[in-house]
């Protein structure tokens, strides 16, 4: 059993501020959990506390049924992959991978067998005799993962393993890590600030901010129903558009009204009773540009940003900015007047005061 349980875990570096504040979470056996959050939110600290290389201020960490607070890192059955690889620079790739096995007094034949197997999976067989300084970033990362694999840990901990790689390599390695998880049958905890990585890799995502979980759920749940404006913004790339809006009831249906444009929602009628002030959140991919000025908002093009086959059209609406993501079929000039439409049922409605999503309200 390699489930992990965090019970009211806290970390305090200085007297007045909690880096982690009363965190509780259960990670199931063989689950792929992604800790997602902006830098400084405590996600790496949490990972390190599970690994045992960061002291716990309060609370308990359980791996399986055992409370590991007082267990040495090496005896926790975890392996960690670091952001900057942390390979031993004075050892060859082979020695790097053998180091931990040697300490565990695993027989030479068995050591070689495991390293060979890991090298096959990661395609680093030709590199075994090289030193880390002779490897590229992607190769180093493979070795770092290989060093974790050979230990056959119950739990893999990965601390932003792909953030030092270039975009293309990152995409490849992401897929490799996904495959690895399916193949190894271990529990993975993966720290990242990249929502694409989080969404593609995670069985579940835990979004953190300021030392607390904001939302824990499957990628689908989080995209579909972000609990608050922070989560909605963080999980969206390009950033979500926020607009001042109001709620209107017509024919037993709740609509969001933005400057005369009505957007359908599936909010229950009860929300109207409190008549909250709201902010509408619309993802750039749920907007479109149209000739038709009816049911659309008149905006002005600021600039366009081409990303592969798509284009982000940055617009100015009154005093705020607005982004529309569409396929790259035509160019837009600066200052050009366009009409932005919004697809129905794709609007997230947040309470202006609490910033909470009205739909996800308990």
């Amino acid at each position: 059993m390699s489930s992990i349980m965090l019970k009211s875990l806290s970390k305090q570096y200085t007297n007045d501020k909690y880096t982690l504040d009363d965190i509780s979470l259960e990670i199931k056996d063989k689950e792929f959990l992604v800790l997602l959050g902006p830098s400084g939110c405590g996600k790496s600290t949490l990972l390190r506390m599970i690994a045992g290389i960061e002291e716990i201020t309060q609370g308990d960490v359980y791996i399986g049924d055992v409370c590991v607070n007082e267990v040495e890192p090496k005896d926790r059955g975890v392996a960690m992959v670091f952001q900057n690889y942390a390979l031993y620079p004075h050892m060859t790739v082979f020695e790097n991978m053998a180091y931990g096995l040697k300490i565990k007094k695993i027989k030479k034949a068995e050591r070689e067998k495991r390293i060979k197997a890991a090298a096959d999976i990661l395609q680093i067989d030709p590199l075994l005799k090289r030193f880390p300084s002779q490897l590229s970033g992607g190769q180093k990362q493979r070795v770092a993962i290989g060093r974790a694999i050979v230990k056959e840990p119950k739990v893999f901990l990965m601390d932003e393993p792909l953030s030092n790689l270039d975009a293309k390599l990152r995409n490849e390695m992401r897929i490799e890590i996904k495959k690895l998880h399916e193949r190894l049958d271990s529990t993975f905890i993966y720290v990242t600030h990249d929502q694409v990585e989080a969404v593609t890799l995670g069985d579940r995502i835990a979004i953190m901010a300021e030392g607390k979980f904001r939302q824990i759920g499957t990628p689908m749940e989080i995209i579909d129903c972000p609990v608050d404006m922070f989560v909605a913004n963080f999980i969206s790339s390009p950033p979500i558009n926020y607009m001042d809006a109001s709620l209107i009831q017509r024919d037993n249906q709740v609509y969001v009204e933005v400057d005369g444009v009505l957007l359908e929602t599936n909010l229950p009628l009860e929300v109207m009773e409190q008549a909250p002030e709201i902010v509408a959140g619309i993802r750039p991919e749920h907007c479109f540009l149209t000739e038709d000025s009816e049911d659309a908002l008149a905006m002005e093009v600021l600039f366009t940003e081409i990303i592969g086959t798509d284009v982000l059209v940055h617009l100015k609406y009154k005093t705020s900015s607005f982004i529309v993501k569409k396929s790259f079929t035509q160019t837009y000039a600066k200052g050009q007047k366009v009409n932005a439409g919004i697809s129905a049922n794709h609007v997230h409605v947040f309470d202006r005061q609490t910033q909470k999503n009205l739909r996800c309200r308990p």
Partner: protein
Amino acid sequence: MSLAKLKTGIHYAMLILLSVLMVFPFLWMFLISIKPKSEVYSGSLLPSTFHFENYIRVFTETKMLLYLWNSISVSLIVIVFQIFTAIFAAYVFATAQKRWVRYCFVLILATYMLPSAVTYIPSFILLSKANLLDTHIGYILSELISIFAVFFLRQSFAQVPKDVVHAAKLDGAGHLRLIFTVYIPYCKNAIASLVLITFIYSYNNYMWPSLLIKSEENMFVTIGLRRLFMSQAGYGMDFPLAMAACAISLAPMLILLAIASKRIIHSMANLYVNK
């Protein structure tokens, strides 16, 4: 001429001037060492005839060979002890998180700021009580730990990436294994330079050994040279012989420098230049 060129010109002029200032005494020493005794005060820099036999006389008429052996062998033993003790102390000071350990380090550094003369009398009394005056063992005991070495190694140990250490801990390495398989290999350049610096320091050490060592068979090069000057003072000094002995005493240093000049410069730059 552009300002930049002028600047480089001035830099070079300064460097050349300083180099001449540094090199001249050595050159002078060498020139006197090959002069006949009668020409020492002749006023001309160059000798009229070359007398390289002065160098042979150093070995036949003085105990220079013994001094050299004493200096080099004792220095090597001192190096082994200083590096060994410094490695463990540096590991603690580089890795321990506790506040009182850091205070200890500051305290130890503070003793480094004391003029070394302050410690002569207590050290002398201690060694005399232990009956170790005028012995190599006494000297070695008093040089077992070098605060400079501790400080130097702590600085380079502190540069070992934390994550590499964490990785080793996760791999199951304890303190000793961390020191010997991570810290030492990672800092092997720093340790090599420390060996050199320690050797230079120990070989050149004069004041403390001169208080401690009295008998001729235990003398180091530094005291031996002084004795050479003193012993002949009454008869008109044999400057060429003394200068030849000085030149010979430099030989181990020069050989070291030739082998490791790059490393010495590199390590000094590493230690004192904030990158």
